[in-house]
């Protein structure tokens, strides 16, 4: 009985110190490597999350701009009797507002249009069904922030009416970044900013043969260059999302 107890003890005996030390060393090494990998992964994850966040926000903005352009010009003049439309110009939506000459004399985009419509500023008009009647929806790039404003159409200067309602909508929009920022971005993305020129957010396609005036804008082509909020911790460079979209104005000309 004693013998059998002894032999069992020997077989059940604990690890020796050496064994434990080796085991601990091995464990520490493996754990260390694992944590180091995890650390790298977490950094990477944070960077990806940041990037995806920018991507997501840019997507939402692109989607909203497209929706606003689709609905621009609703309700058109033909939704009213001629007399009512003439007497209530603020109830009728022209697809796009402009300055100067609004609403009687359309300006020429790229020439006599001041502020809007332009490469970085667009005002659509539509009744969004919110009970507020026809509203101006303005997108305006200020620095690297794309601002959005919604204001009731009042028949006066649409830029002035929306100016104090602009709120930040999308951050880190680099389409019209400073030369230094452009150079930094180009270092990591050589295809950006061809000719070192700013990239318009809004470019316009007009009805065939029509003057380059806001009432004749048929399509709005949107390009958003958005950089991540934080630089990539591994490379130290900002990552960039370039989104392009096209929105068709469906409502008829006024």
């Amino acid at each position: 009985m004693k013998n059998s107890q002894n032999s069992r003890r020997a077989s059940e005996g604990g690890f020796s110190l050496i064994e434990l030390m080796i085991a601990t060393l091995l464990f520490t090494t493996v754990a260390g490597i694992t944590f180091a990998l995890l650390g790298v992964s977490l950094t990477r994850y944070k960077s990806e999350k940041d990037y995806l966040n920018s991507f997501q926000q840019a997507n939402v903005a692109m989607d909203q701009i497209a929706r606003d352009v689709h609905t621009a010009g609703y309700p058109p003049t033909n939704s009213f009797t001629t007399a009512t439309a003439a007497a209530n110009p603020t109830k009728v939506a022209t697809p796009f507002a402009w300055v100067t000459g609004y609403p009687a004399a359309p300006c020429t985009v790229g020439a006599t249009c001041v502020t809007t419509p332009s490469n970085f500023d667009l005002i659509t008009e539509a009744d969004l069904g919110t009970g507020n009647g026809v509203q101006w929806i303005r997108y305006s790039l200020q620095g690297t922030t794309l601002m959005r404003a919604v204001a009731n159409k009042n028949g006066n200067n649409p830029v002035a009416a929306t100016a104090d309602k602009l709120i930040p909508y999308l951050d880190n929009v680099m389409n019209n970044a400073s030369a230094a920022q452009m150079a930094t971005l180009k270092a990591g993305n050589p295809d950006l900013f061809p000719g070192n020129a700013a990239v318009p957010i809004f470019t316009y396609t007009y009805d065939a043969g029509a003057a380059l005036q806001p009432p004749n804008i048929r399509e709005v082509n949107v390009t958003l260059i958005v950089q991540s909020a934080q630089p990539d911790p591994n490379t130290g460079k900002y990552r960039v999302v370039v989104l392009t979209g096209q929105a068709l104005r469906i409502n008829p000309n006024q």
Partner: protein
Amino acid sequence: MQNRLPKTSRKSERGVALFIAIFALLLISVVALALMVMAGTETSLNSNYKSSVQAFYDARAGLEEARGRLWSANPNALGGFVVASGATMPVGAVRYILNPATGETVNPTDMSSGNQYADRQYSSEWGSNPPTTTPTTLSVWAQTGVVAPGPLYKWVRITPRTEQSAGIDVNGDGTFDNANPLFFDGTQQVLANQIPPLVTAYQVFELTALSVTPTGSQRLEQYIVAPTNLNLQFPSALTFDGLAPTYNAPNSNPFDMNGNDRSGANPMPGCTIPAQPARPAVGVVSPADIATTASGIPADRLDHYLGAGVTTPSIGNISSLLPTTENTVTNLNQLVANITQVANNVVQGPAGNNSFPLGSASSPQITVVNGDLTLTGSNVGYGILVVTGTLTFSGNTGWRGIVLVIGQGNMVENGGGNEEFDGAVLVAKTLDANGNPLPSLNAPILNWAGGGGNGVYYDSCWINNATSGLTYKVLGFREISQ
């Protein structure tokens, strides 16, 4: 007791290796999961963007299908499912085109919370849920025998449009009318009870489509549509559009020209549009032409020209009542071009009986003949007929709708039959013999020989029916946020 101690310590040591193994596995799993989540997020973002754009076009496909099928010449025309030809879709009526995927049920009138295809927008326009008895039809994609997967819209709703449903005070009277459907006269929308006299207007429809993609993107979009309005107006039953017309009238006793609405022997079945005021039987464009036109009528037949005015023959100067589309060479030729664009049949003359389908009351045709047309025998056509050369009718032939002889402005009726023209006829000479536009409108010619009972009878129902063959035009579009 001595035995137990080692046993206990053995037990406590037994699982260490397992714990270490589980811990290591957990660590690796976390890393793997993190990587998978990252990749997954990116994929779903990309597909979200794609899905959202897809949903937009899916809903538009539904709207386009409904718009196309409102056109009477569409092979899958909705026809009487929406509204009978010549009738008005009453306020409160609603129709759905359903487009379920294979094995799927789409019921927009089921308002239970689990029904993701419920039409919850209807009540915001009409103040109540859509009736559960609403008639439905299947989309062209969901019909038997169609194998191609169609666009992923679920339903398209078709309703009339009123001030209230639109949320628009169309006539600026401060109230949202919900009794009178809206009509479109080519430039403006007007309430059904406020359509100006002498104006042709067509009912406005609201088409609303819901699309849902498999990834859950939804869009609700709306078209406002009405038939393309050619701005055709007829201030008289027979209109001579040009100075000094030549009119050789028949001597037949049963022959009549009549500017009173629906005075002919062939009233249109099921017509509900309001009767129009009486017009002159014959319209000319200068006061002097009244007498010269009357001089072409046999003295004992002057009282066969009835219509506006107390004296016969009822011949009036309608120059101020002609719409701009009908008052100059340029505009008339443009009108012919516009009709050609929407025509069912465009044929080169000389053409005859079998050159194009004559149509029927339920399927009126829009036909443009570039050149001469001769119709003989017992034939009755329906719709809009445009002839740029000489139009010759003989025998028992007639027309229900609109006849435009614009171009050579020469119409010959050999008479002898008992059929009649119900609707309106306009004759204008805009082209010289070589087909080149004239500097101004020349004298139109109508030689009406022979007897018989045929004549021209103004009929707003047939005029309206003729234009029901027109395609529907998009008057407005909006996306409805949900």
